[in-house]
């Protein structure tokens, strides 16, 4: 199976044109296989939250925390859902025609692409200046958590560190989506002058044929990668033990108990109700 497709430029050179759309089926298959395998595993796996006794003790310690703890503010939630809608439109318009459902997809695709780019730009500014920027990234500081999580996955009762605001898996997923999303968005933006949008003057020659080939291949690889990533994301969003996170993306908050069950107060400090009370993580 050829993973890349080549064409002949007017100057007789072989240039890349696309990725093979077999990769779309491979990504779809990988996504489905992952959720089947994970769901099967989870049937026999215990939930990894704190025990009731441990959480009760923490509740007693942090009794001045508000009953509802904000996890995602309104701007963050709006960004998430607008981006999700744009992503679904992009994936369906890109891949349904490949799967045999024929319709005029280009206009829907580029409009959704612009919405996605706008939402990403908003997110970058919002996360950089108004949120805790580093809370979503992974780094050496996460090695203890990674070790603890791995041991828990293998059935060990490990007291080690819980996650900060975002679980490790969540942050690793974010990293993957950053690469795939930016890859698709940047190359997609480059393609805008190739089609009739009415927004910019058409000029398909502003990059060389070889550069266009790399652009299209990157766009294709990012696109097929997003298929698998989105399947995984939706799967985790609807899993019963993760529903409290999904709900927080709708309502914006989690309960105090959920906060104490799943998070490490020292890694995600939350302000107490009144200024004289002890804040979680800042005791």
């Amino acid at each position, binding site marked *: 199976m050829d993973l890349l497709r080549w064409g*002949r*430029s*007017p100057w007789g050179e072989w240039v890349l*044109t*696309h990725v093979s759309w077999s990769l779309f089926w491979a990504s779809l298959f990988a996504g489905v296989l992952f959720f089947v395998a994970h769901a099967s595993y989870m049937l026999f796996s215990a939930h990894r939250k704190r025990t009731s006794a441990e959480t009760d003790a923490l509740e007693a310690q942090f009794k001045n925390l508000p009953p509802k703890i904000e996890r995602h503010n309104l701007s963050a939630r709006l960004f998430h859902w607008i981006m999700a809608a744009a992503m679904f439109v992009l994936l369906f318009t890109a891949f349904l025609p490949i799967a045999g459902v024929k319709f005029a997809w*280009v206009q829907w695709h580029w409009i959704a692409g612009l919405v996605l780019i706008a939402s990403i730009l908003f997110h970058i500014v919002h996360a950089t200046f108004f949120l805790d920027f580093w809370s979503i990234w992974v780094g050496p500081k996460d090695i203890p958590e990674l070790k603890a999580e791995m041991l828990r996955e293998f059935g060990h009762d490990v007291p080690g560190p819980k996650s900060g605001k975002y679980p490790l898996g969540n942050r690793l997923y974010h990293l993957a989506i950053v690469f795939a999303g930016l890859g698709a968005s940047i190359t997609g933006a480059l393609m805008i002058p*190739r089609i*009739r949008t009415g927004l910019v003057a058409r000029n*398909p*020659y502003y990059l060389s044929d070889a550069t266009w080939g790399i652009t299209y291949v990157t766009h294709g690889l990012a696109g097929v990668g997003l298929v698998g990533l989105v399947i995984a994301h939706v799967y985790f969003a609807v899993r019963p033990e993760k529903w409290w996170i999904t709900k927080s993306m709708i309502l914006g908050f989690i309960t105090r108990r959920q906060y104490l069950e799943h998070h490490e107060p020292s890694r995600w400090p939350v302000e107490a109700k009144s200024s004289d009370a002890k804040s979680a993580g800042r005791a």
Partner: protein
Amino acid sequence: MAVIRDVMPVFELYQPASIDDAIKLLDKHGADALVLAGGLDSMDWLKDRLKKPKAVVDLGAIKELKGVKELNGGLEIGAMTPLTEVVKHPMVRDKFSLLMEAAELVASPQIRNQGTIGGNVSQDTRCWYYRGGWTCYRAGGNICYADTPTAVNREHAIFDADRCVAVNPSDTAPALLALDASMVIRGPKGERIVPAEEYWIGPGIDITRMNVLAPNEILTAIRIPSTMAGAQFYFEKVRDRQVWDFPLVNVASAMVVSGDKIDKIRLVVNAVAATPRRLKNVETAVVGKTRNEETADMAGKMAVEGAQTLRHNAYKVPLMRNLVKRAIRGGAGATWTS
């Protein structure tokens, strides 16, 4: 670029004697097969070595695909019926002379003797970048060489371009659409009948195909209902030379008139988009109106609304406007405006 050679690439030639056998072969070979009707389009592809099918399925030996017969007051024309036979058939001449006129203007007498009506309506586009072997969108690439600032695009689309700006070059297609024809298609799952309006597809739907035929399907017949039998017809084709040439623009209309009033009309223009373009807005606007210069003028102006020209094809706008005007007015003695 394509280099024409005398020797075609190697392929297996199949000459089935029945439609069922042809479909079995196409189903077996899938996208590796090429359907051969009259061969006038296919041979170019083969000689240019731009298509290298593993199998060529020649439909020439299938008798049930040939001939014209009456069907419920209308006609059923086998897809492999030569254009000359269509032109000469008495019922075509009597009741559906629009098709006769269109078929008679296809290419040259020799080509009409060999070319079939099924091949004429299903032929590939003539975009010379595409047929030159360049890896454009339609050929599976990622660019339309005809839609660039330096492109030579005199023959290309002024409507409905979606990345690709190639046009449908058929003369019989607009006539059949004006006659409200249906296409009979057979495949492994049986027969399906597709209205002519849905037979041709633009690049927005599928950039690599001109019609709805799947690789394992064949067009077996074209049915023309009696709806427009004996109506007032108009067909005009403008081309660079007066024989053996594809249309720059052509127009076909079938009109039912009471006195001076237009009761009913189907109006189609081709070679301005990737599919024959039925002008429904013009049809609606002229129904009930008097067939005169004023109505024709209005129709011509309406017809070209929304046209988007390329670097070298702006002439198609006044050309199409005048052809539509002449089709509404009918008869001779048209005056050109630009």
